[in-house]
């Protein structure tokens, strides 16, 4: 029954995209609830009182918060289909390590590009590219971070691809020029329906950011 699984989310959120991809990979039906972050619903405030943030997965009435925790939950509950984490403990630890690296570096790194100018922005771009290159190193010659199949780290990182156009436009640089291997990986991921249907369109993300900047008076 679809209403057993509810996702409280916003279309543009890269964290929400992670959960959408995981649900799609597992073929799980769910009810999608779009939140207005300027006017948070009572449901969201009740289900995530600590952070009041999306995404929140509500399974049989019980909330699970924090995108990577939700993805692991989905993997553990619907364990008979399409494993998202490796079965080998060492490989699993590496997947967790790299997903944690994405969490530590990419969101804040991208935000710095969007919110700064001049020298500060140049430094932000340099740092961001460095982090992407580290991730390229971790990918190596594999098709996906997960090996032959899309895995935990792919799911953690690919949503940011929908924000790359916005970072590039704001920062006036090309990520593909610096990290061609990563962009090739991203395009491979986008060939999967679970990914292409879950990610927001890059131009819409860019418009959204421009709107937010205008609303908050940020240049």
């Amino acid at each position, binding site marked *: 029954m679809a209403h057993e699984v509810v996702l409280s989310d916003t279309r543009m959120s890269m964290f929400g995209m992670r959960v959408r991809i995981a649900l799609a990979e597992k073929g799980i039906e769910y009810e999608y609830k779009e939140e207005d972050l300027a006017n948070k619903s009572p449901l969201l405030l009740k289900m995530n009182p*600590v952070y009041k943030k999306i995404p929140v997965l509500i*399974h049989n009435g*019980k909330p*699970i*918060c*924090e995108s990577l*925790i*939700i993805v*692991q*939950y989905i993997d*553990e*509950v619907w364990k008979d289909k399409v494993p998202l984490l490796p079965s080998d*403990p*060492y490989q*699993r*630890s*590496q997947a*967790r*390590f790299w997903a*944690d*690296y994405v969490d530590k570096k990419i969101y804040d790194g991208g935000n710095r590009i969007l919110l700064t100018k001049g020298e500060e922005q140049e430094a932000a771009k340099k740092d961001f590219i460095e982090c992407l290159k*580290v991730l390229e190193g971790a990918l190596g010659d594999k098709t996906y971070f997960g090996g032959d199949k899309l895995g935990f780290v792919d799911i953690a990182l690919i949503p940011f691809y929908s924000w790359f156009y916005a970072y590039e436009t704001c920062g006036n640089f090309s990520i593909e020029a610096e990290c061609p291997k990563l962009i090739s990986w991203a395009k491979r991921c986008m060939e999967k329906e679970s990914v292409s249907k879950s990610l927001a369109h890059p131009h819409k993300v860019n418009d959204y950011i421009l709107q937010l900047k205008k609303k908050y008076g940020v240049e």
Partner: protein
Amino acid sequence: MATGDVKLLGAGASPYVNRVQIALNIKSENYEFLEEKLGSKSELLLKSNPIHKKIPVLIHDDKPICESLVIVQYIDDVWTSGPSILPSDPYDRAIARFWAAYVDDKWYPLMKELWMAEGEEARAAAIEKIGEGLVVLEEAFVKCSKGKAFFGGDSIGFLDIAFGSFLGWLKVTEKMGEMQLLSEAKTPNLVEWAERFCCDDAVKDVFPKTEKLIEIFKIMQARAKAPPSN
């Protein structure tokens, strides 16, 4: 059952390292402790953790695993014959992970804010926020423990380790600031839990003595406030 060469790169004063020690103790797993000196990073550390260059690093059969909570989960995944560290139910696991992340991302940074605070107002503000966080964790304890001794139930689990590892430094902060952060009045369950946690067989020999931690704290504070050398 997994056997093999287990080394832990770390420093006894680091709560992140303590997490790994506690996890290995729960599994009754022997390991070689390679002590990193305060203020310097060994070749082995730089080679094993080139990305973050931080302790702890677990080296199992020459393969490095980094990030304390990733290591603890690895230990739980490998040494399956010992007591479980993560709950078996996926929902309980998600809740344990959620609160462990809260401790790391929200609560512990408040402690660092307090240590760096200059002036009474800043100190008071930090203490208040820490107290509020502890009340949130007190509520979490009541829900997670379901009337039992630990967050993990009858025995120490993932969240006990994640949060409990900071108790050594919490005591130092209380002693040096001559105040109570964990109080009977506001967080009675946590006060009792903290005592049980520190007395547990897997934990009791792990934390350095409070006096030793105070010494280290003073050295680190002096370094943080020293003018940068040219």
